[in-house]
């Protein structure tokens, strides 16, 4: 068990690892929250504006769709670099986990918007009509029927988004965001401390497992079909 003692006495692990783990959690947590707050309305707007939606509007739909597609097609690293001026302006720095939240959020919003749009699209038109015939306004249909009926799908999509954010956050680590990804690269790749890298990777895998399990449980609990 000498490798274990060696591992637990390595300062990279004892000092840096807890800190990096917290950074990853903060980075992912904040960008996930902001992605949900931005992506859900965007997804609803995409769905409502398309033909057959609550308020069809060809031009609005085309523009939204284009913006979302551009946002999704940019590789994350390029997005992060391109956003550096915005990030500086918003957070005062281009480094650290706070700075990484900006590109992560910008990347995740269109990602989640598409997943939310797809989830909401699953709600049959008849349910919307039933609500309209009960005298519901558009807003009431949106919240009380479209979102509520597609909640399991919205949660599943959110889980997928959070997991994607975990992997992007590791990439953000490569350009100075801190977190487990940064630790893995700076020790494992730059200083050949493979054990540190492996520990980081294992933690990331565990985190993803945990997120997926919780996400599935919540989605199932919300699903009454």
């Amino acid at each position, binding site marked *: 068990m000498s490798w274990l003692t060696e591992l637990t006495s390595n300062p990279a692990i004892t000092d840096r690892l807890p800190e990096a783990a917290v950074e990853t959690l903060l980075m992912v947590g904040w960008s996930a929250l902001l992605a949900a707050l931005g992506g859900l309305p965007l997804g609803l707007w995409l769905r409502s504006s398309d033909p057959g939606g609550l308020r069809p509007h060809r031009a609005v739909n085309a523009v939204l769709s284009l913006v979302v597609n551009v946002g999704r097609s940019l590789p994350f690293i390029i997005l992060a670099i391109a956003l550096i001026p915005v990030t500086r302006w918003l957070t005062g720095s281009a480094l650290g986990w706070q700075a990484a939240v900006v590109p992560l959020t910008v990347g995740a919003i269109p990602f989640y918007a598409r997943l939310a749009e797809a989830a909401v699209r699953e709600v049959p038109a*008849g*349910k919307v*009509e*039933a*609500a309209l*015939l*009960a005298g*519901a306004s558009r807003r009431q249909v949106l919240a009380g029927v479209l979102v509520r009926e597609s909640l399991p799908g919205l949660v599943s999509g959110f889980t997928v988004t959070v997991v994607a954010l975990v992997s992007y956050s590791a990439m953000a680590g490569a350009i100075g965001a801190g977190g487990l990804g940064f630790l893995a690269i700076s020790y494992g790749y730059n200083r050949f401390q493979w054990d540190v890298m492996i520990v980081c990777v294992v933690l990331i895998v565990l985190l993803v497992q945990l997120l997926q399990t919780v996400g599935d449980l919540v989605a199932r609990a919300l699903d009454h*079909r």
Partner: protein
Amino acid sequence: MVDDGIVLNALRKVYPLRSGEVMALDGIDLRVQRGAVHGIVGESGAGKSTLIRCVTGLERPTSGSVWVDGEEISAAGERDLRRARRRIGMVFQHVHLFDARTAADNVGYPLRIAKVPAARRRERVAELLELVGLQGRGDSYPAQLSGGQRQRVGIARALAADPSVLLCDEPTSALDAATTRQILRLIRDVRDRIGLTVLIITHEMSVVREVCDSVTLLDRGRVAEHGPLAEVAGRPGTRLARELIPLPPLPAGGAGAGVEVAFAGADTASVFRTIGGLGDGVEVAAGTVETLGGTQAGRLRLDVPADRRDEVLRALRDAGLHAEGGEAR
């Protein structure tokens, strides 16, 4: 003109398609009086659903007008439409319950939208669930109910906000015969109790026979036949008469000419007396008698010696019956 019930005036609905257009409704005039149960039948694609969607305001007519209880639905703005819809309940073929809500919350949904206070809402929901025979099942989610139970929740939801008009688009076509009968009885009961005006689309003639007071046959967007049940059934040779009162298959053999007799609202015994008095060689080859809209209506197929055909037809008509000569067999 204050007119209760449903009134359609020269209603037209054209759907534009990439290649030309579809004339879904082509000049429909229809009046359904308050408290009446009116059936709409017709082949697939005849425009039945389009018609009902125009009544709800989900579909805007291309021209013509739609009135519900004296209010013009076809011209209502969004706000007026939302208010007017509280007076309209709708039952769908596929029910369209909200899967994420319990039966009670489904039924209470229109009340929530109408901002009825929670306590009053609970009372009313309990009342409605009892009306449709689902007391105690309020906490069940739609997925935990049978098809017939779901449809009953759908009817309770449609009735929640005390509508004066109930629209049903094939409410029973996904149900078995016994459940269908329950649902139809429920619709009739409710009509009797609160004087609801009911418009019911169906492709099953048995549904028309069982609940409707009057019926319209749509054919490619036009009214082909129309009238009170007993009356349309008494017009021999029409499609509705044939379908409302189907003749059993004719026995093989038989000689001479066929004569078809249709009657409605008449005393069946006197019809048979008339036929018995027609003399030699006239026999009933096949016949059906139904109770339609509270009166007796029937169709009979007579075997008549070929040389007495005209004479028999005259005698039947003199007795006040509809009679038509078929081809000789």
